[in-house]
């Protein structure tokens, strides 16, 4: 009888402890997934804005002005991370752009080109 009560007492709170451990694991998993989604969204957005920057430069505007506009547009939707490097240059008949973005201890490189016929 005594063993029976002791076992029952030991089992009380077991589900709460299990819940704590699993919650931690799930929170970490959700955090990783959200960070991954954020990285993908940011990369897509930066790729799009870099292309717009190339179009701006191809309109014979000052490339530095286009670069600063591109950075401003990127930061509108993506204030996190740091843009370490953004360059727009002309190579023969094509405009090429490159961005280096630093986020979550990693560097991401994005390249785009706009070739004119």
């Amino acid at each position: 009888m005594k063993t029976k009560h002791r076992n029952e007492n030991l089992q009380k709170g077991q589900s709460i402890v299990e819940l704590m451990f699993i919650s931690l694991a799930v929170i970490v998993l959700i955090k990783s997934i959200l960070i991954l989604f954020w990285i993908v969204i940011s990369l897509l957005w930066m790729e799009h804005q870099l292309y717009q920057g190339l179009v701006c430069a191809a309109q014979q505007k000052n490339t530095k002005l286009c670069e600063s506009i591109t950075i401003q547009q990127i930061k509108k939707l993506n204030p996190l991370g740091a843009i370490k490097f953004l360059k727009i240059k002309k190579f023969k008949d094509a405009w090429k752009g490159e961005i280096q973005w630093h986020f979550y201890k990693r560097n991401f490189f994005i390249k785009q080109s706009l070739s004119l016929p």
Partner: protein
Amino acid sequence: MAFLQKKFFYQTKFKPSLITQRLYKSNSQKGFINLFLLPLIALMMTGVIGLASLSIGIKHITQTQSTCIKNNIKGKIKLGLLLKQILNLNEKVLKLHKTRQVFQAKLAVAVSTGQIKLILSLRKTLSLIKKGQALLMLKQQYILNQSQLVKVNTLKKLKKDLQILPVSKIQEKTFFTKALALEKKREGDKAYTYKPAANFTERQKSRFLWKMNPFYPLNISRLIFKQKKTFQYQCTASLTKKGHLWISHLYH
């Protein structure tokens, strides 16, 4: 195992033993992780759908823009060549016009002096000059007609290329009445020279506009804006002189 448990329970009608209680508990805890995974899977599915629609939207925007830029610039390259041709004819037009004036003066002198042979040869030469002028006029008209054709075909080609994308209301906005922004100057009878209009690059530009729902077929615009929303996009190109060439480029 479950069958034995049920049999034991109904047969004894007593509270089940501790072992049986533990078995029931472990069975009731099965599916605990599945319950936790359901909202996670829902979250992941929402995220994946959102990412897919964003990626599709951005791809559509870039694709339509690059198609428009390609077609617009190609059209402008063709117009640039035609522009160069018609401007090159100006020299010939002026030369023929001066020659005609000279021969007309000579003819007047010959008529006054009554030199019949000279009058006949000068008239023959003058008729050749007039034919030459008429031919030049035809060439100029042909080039202008070709430029109009290029303008129409550029829009046609753009509409055809954008057919596969979710684009509507493709239209062209021009800033001059004709395909080439030229000013015509009369040089005597049946002779015209053409020169680029004032503020040529601004007036030669052509802008293609179109409306698009970039997130088609995933109509997420309904979720955000509570109605089907389309966005307007445009691309503009023009011509600028650099040395002896007319360069086509994007314009604002």
